[in-house]
């Protein structure tokens, strides 16, 4: 065997032992899963994905299996089967889809103290979930190569970091708006602390999965107690900025990299001489002046309480300004 083949064999064996350990949590073996799946699992390259594949999960976890099938034009609707009480979700994807998804990712990155950070557009939630699952997938039998090559993996990570950072910055801006509007914001800042830990775990190579696994990710990423305490005690915009500067070398003001926009899906409705905005809450609102623009500017021009009211009624939303973040990172 060549060294490369030896390495592949070793990796394949360690993946199979990780697979056994993962399925053991739900009292199953790979053979039992394959036998129960029948023809549904008898095509293409099968991978265990999700929390079990990432080494998390427990006896209540679902078994999520993705199969990559040549000549399949599009992903199939998911199948749900049960092995005893364990739900097994099975989805089939075109074998070329992972490569296509990675090719569509921007290549530009910036070096930060947290690792390379993707520039450009933040991932859609759906794409982020798929990339994370495929990045951490375990092959269900020997001789199957990982879904992503090392080069592709290196291209995905900076985008996961951007996703996590974007969440933190948006939450921090929103917490600040609520703070200025006079709301008790302890809970919002606590969410920022969690989002900070999410960024740090992602930077440490543990990409985001279901929120409930955050404590486990923190343990696995072996974050220092000082770091965890610092994040858990975030109580202000200054705290968030200080953490980003200290651990990421990033001088970012969340208020300058977030935008207030009209909420997606809001429709104009005219009833006689009256005009309304039909919001996602199924309500017709007559908001009058709707503030739009960079979050910091909006707060400088408008009463924070009015901004929060419009956010709460679904007339406007607060979101990351991709270009603003790129400018801040470059500076």
């Amino acid at each position, binding site marked *: 065997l060549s060294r490369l083949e030896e390495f592949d064999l070793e990796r394949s064996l360690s993946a199979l032992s990780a697979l056994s350990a993962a399925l053991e949590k739900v009292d199953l073996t790979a053979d039992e899963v394959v036998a129960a799946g029948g023809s549904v699992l008898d095509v293409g390259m099968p991978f265990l994905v999700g929390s079990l594949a990432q080494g998390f999960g*427990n*006896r209540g976890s679902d078994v999520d299996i993705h199969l990559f099938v040549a000549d399949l034009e599009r992903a199939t609707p998911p199948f749900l089967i049960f092995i005893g009480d364990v739900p097994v979700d099975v989805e089939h994807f075109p074998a070329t889809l992972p490569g296509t998804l990675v090719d569509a990712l921007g290549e530009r990155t910036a070096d930060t103290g947290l690792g390379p950070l993707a520039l450009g557009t933040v991932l859609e*939630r759906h794409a982020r979930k798929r990339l994370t699952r495929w990045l951490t997938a375990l092959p269900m039998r020997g001789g199957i190569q990982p879904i992503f090559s090392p080069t592709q993996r290196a291209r995905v990570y900076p985008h996961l970091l951007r996703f996590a950072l974007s*969440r933190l910055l*948006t*939450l921090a801006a929103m917490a600040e708006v609520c703070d200025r509007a006079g709301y008790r914001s*302890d809970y919002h800042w606590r969410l920022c602390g969690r989002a900070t830990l999410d960024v740090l775990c992602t930077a440490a190579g543990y990409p985001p999965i279901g929120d409930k696994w955050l404590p486990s990710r923190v343990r696995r990423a072996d974050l220092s107690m000082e770091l965890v305490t610092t994040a858990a005690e975030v109580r202000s915009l200054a705290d968030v900025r200080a953490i980003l500067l200290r651990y990421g070398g990033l001088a970012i003001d969340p208020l300058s990299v977030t935008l207030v926009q009209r909420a997606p899906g809001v429709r104009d409705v005219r009833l006689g001489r009256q005009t309304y905005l039909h919001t*996602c809450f199924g309500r017709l609102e007559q908001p009058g002046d709707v503030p739009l623009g960079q979050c910091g500017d909006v707060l400088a021009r408008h009463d924070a309480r009015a901004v929060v009211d419009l956010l709460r009624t679904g007339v406007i939303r607060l979101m990351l300004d991709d270009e603003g973040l790129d400018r801040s990172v470059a500076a």
Partner: protein
Amino acid sequence: VNASANPNSHDALWLAARGAPASLVFVNDVQSAVGDIDAAMKDEDWPTAVEACDFALRSVYFCRLVLDGLERRCQDGELDLLLATDDDAVANQLRHLPSSLRAGEADARRGRGLVNQAVTELEDDLPIRMPVIRTSRGYFPSVRIGADIERLRASCGLPPIDWMAWL
């Protein structure tokens, strides 16, 4: 005007338009979060149990929004904002859950108690009782109720539910 003398009757249009998606959210989000709490507690994984309590209360709150007219899933930060600023009882309980990172058994049991109460009250307000969908026993009865809901919506002149949009 009170066209119906029976206090137990339902507004058919409300049930089809609001109750149906709320029931779907209940089985997808609330039921699964409750299952997650129990699984973590069996493993004595108290931090994950408290996390699951957090998600269960968020899901109850979200389900109530759908019952009240919300037409789609919340996007990033939207639900956080509402939970942080609403006087609602469930939002208030959620805000006072302990941090999961150092949570112990007492925290998890207290959280489970809050979730029990919130879920029971929500079930009382939901017009449709759904079996636990992600079990071999509950799956097909739930699917059948889904088909019944679609027939009701059609008879009320409503389009089919975009089930995938609520997942």
